[in-house]
């Protein structure tokens, strides 16, 4: 194990972690609004990616409009999920809600498999092709740098948004919905808004991570760009509540996962999955309230 190797782990981990952080932000938002682990979060991304791909490659739209269309598709899916599944189940137990979001994810995956049957493996072009730099010998593409940049911009934008009146309304409704209704905040609209923003974040993760490799149906859920489990883990690190925690958690999970590529673990099969599982168990058993929160999550 050399310094170079650790450097590669750190660089690749942080860049990969940016995608996880975007997913985690959406998961934390939804958890604060609806109290559910959103298993459809990564699927918002894949749906957005597919929509962007269809617009750019098949309809021949320009890249910018294609990405915008993809994000809109993701938001539409998020709003539909809230209306058709989350709202009818608002009084059900949390585990039922979880099964519901998993059902949403599966529906999307099924439709993607079906529509994508003829050419199962797709490739989305990158925003800017090429390698930007090679710190420690790890190739960093422009695409990855843009992803990291978008994450930083999103983090700042969210921080500003949650200090604006709409953002404060969301926070109020999430903390005490009855009291928020009494002072004139429509909890229903807040719930829609939260799911819309979460789906937008998922869509961003999808259109940014998709061009890195080829993609298939269920790309972000269990495909090549698997980000659901790392995203959920990052959200757990954030105690399911803290937005800055979700960003840092995503980056940490990215780096921890990359530890599985160290040459010391070369003999172990599926070392990344092993490292993630052990890390999750350690976090949950030692510090279940999350790493980046002071008080215990309630």
């Amino acid at each position: 194990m050399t310094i170079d190797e650790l450097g590669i782990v750190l660089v690749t981990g942080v860049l990969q972690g940016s995608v996880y952080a975007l997913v985690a932000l959406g998961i934390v938002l939804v958890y604060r609004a609806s109290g559910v682990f959103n298993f459809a979060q990564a699927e918002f991304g894949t749906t957005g990616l597919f929509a962007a791909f269809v617009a750019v490659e098949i309809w021949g739209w320009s890249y910018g409009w294609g990405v915008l269309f993809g994000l809109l598709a993701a938001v539409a899916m998020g709003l539909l999920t809230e209306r058709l599944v989350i709202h009818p189940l608002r009084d059900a137990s949390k585990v039922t809600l979880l099964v519901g979001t998993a059902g949403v994810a599966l529906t999307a995956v099924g439709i993607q498999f079906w529509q994508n049957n003829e050419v199962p493996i797709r490739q989305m072009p990158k925003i800017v092709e090429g390698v930007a730099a090679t710190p420690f010998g790890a190739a960093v593409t422009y695409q990855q740098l843009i992803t990291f940049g978008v994450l930083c911009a999103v983090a700042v934008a969210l921080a500003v948004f949650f200090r604006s009146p709409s953002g404060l309304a969301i926070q109020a409704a999430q903390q005490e919905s009855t009291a928020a209704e009494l002072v004139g905040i429509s909890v229903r609209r807040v719930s829609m808004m939260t799911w819309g923003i979460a789906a937008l974040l998922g869509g961003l993760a999808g259109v940014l991570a998709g061009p890195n490799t080829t993609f298939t149906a269920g790309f972000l859920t269990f495909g090549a760009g698997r980000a659901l489990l790392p995203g959920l883990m990052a959200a757990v690190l954030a105690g399911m509540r803290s937005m800055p925690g979700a960003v840092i958690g995503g980056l940490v999970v990215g780096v921890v996962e990359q530890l599985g590529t160290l040459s010391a673990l070369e003999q172990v099969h599926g070392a990344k999955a092993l490292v993630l599982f052990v890390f999750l168990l350690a976090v949950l058993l030692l510090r279940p309230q999350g790493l980046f929160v002071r008080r215990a999550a309630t």
Partner: protein
Amino acid sequence: MSAAIETPPETPAEKTAVLPTVSVEEKPFRPGMSGVLGRGLAWAAVAWLVLAVPGNHLSPFDLGVSDVGVLSTAAIFAIIGLSLNVLIGYAGTISLGHQAFVGIGAFTSAFVVTDLGMEFWLAVPIAAIMGGVQAALLGAISLRLSGLYFALVTLAYGMFAEESLFGIAALTGGEGGKAAPRPIGFETDYQYYYVCLAFLALVWWLDLRLTRTKGGRALQALRENPRVASSYGINVKAYTMLAFVVSGVFAAIGGSLLAHHDEVIVPSSFDFELALLFVLMTVVGGLRNRLGVVLGSVFFALLGSGFLVEALHLTGFVEGVIGLPKEFVALVIGPILLLLTITRFPGGIGQQVAPVRGWMLGGRFDRHAGAVKEIEVNDVRA
């Protein structure tokens, strides 16, 4: 009972009339002659469909080898569905890594038969023990975590099993897979179907015994409210562990049968999608409803292979009109059924067939039997 509410008379002339007590004797319903005959015929039809048709005995249909293979898979899926039902339905803990439970049974069985050279009939119990042990380990973790967090652990566990555990080439044969020959005397698909059916009957009986004994009642109590249950002296931890071990044993039996059904198993077949399919079929079948879970699992197994679409002559409609290839029917229809089940019909298939079931067991045909008002998946720890 006579009404004992005494209202003061409004006018003195009016007197409270004492009505004769009407005694309604609840006679147990006994079907008449034709009823017995009808039910007997229905039972005979079910027995014929399950026992005779797959073996091509007394049957106008000539089922091919692959069709019977699909029916065996359906029986195996039913076992797995019952296993998951113990966890979600009885213990109220969701497992998103059930493919690991099944896979561990499958690879243990294949290892015991191929590498240790033992008999299939010995391999199944050994696989079942392994399944119970791994489930107990996972259960020990779950006792410390609340519902949603535990779901996350099972998800990670499933991924870990799929990628790391099943990748150990010395035990599982790695990418190339591992051979799992069928027992002597049951090599053909027709014969093997009856093996699967026998194990399904065994698992059904064990599950029935579980719910009818002290353990089952304890599980029911602690699912409703663990605190109240423990105040009545129920050992919450011990019984949660019991549910895990039972679920692990059932799943491993299913996995073992699955391995010897496919004859060669590869690690990549135990992926996350399979775990989601298991959850789907159990919830759509109807949690805590043994018959419903079995029917749901069979339904999804048949749907997944395209067998059901072909058997109902819907291929033209599904592929031509909707443009949906038949292999994708389960993938697209299944999740929509799941969402409909949890938002509209929480009792699942079990609720739909409850009137027929009651009738066949000798009761009246009650259209409202089995109605479930509350959403069934419930974990108060969540």
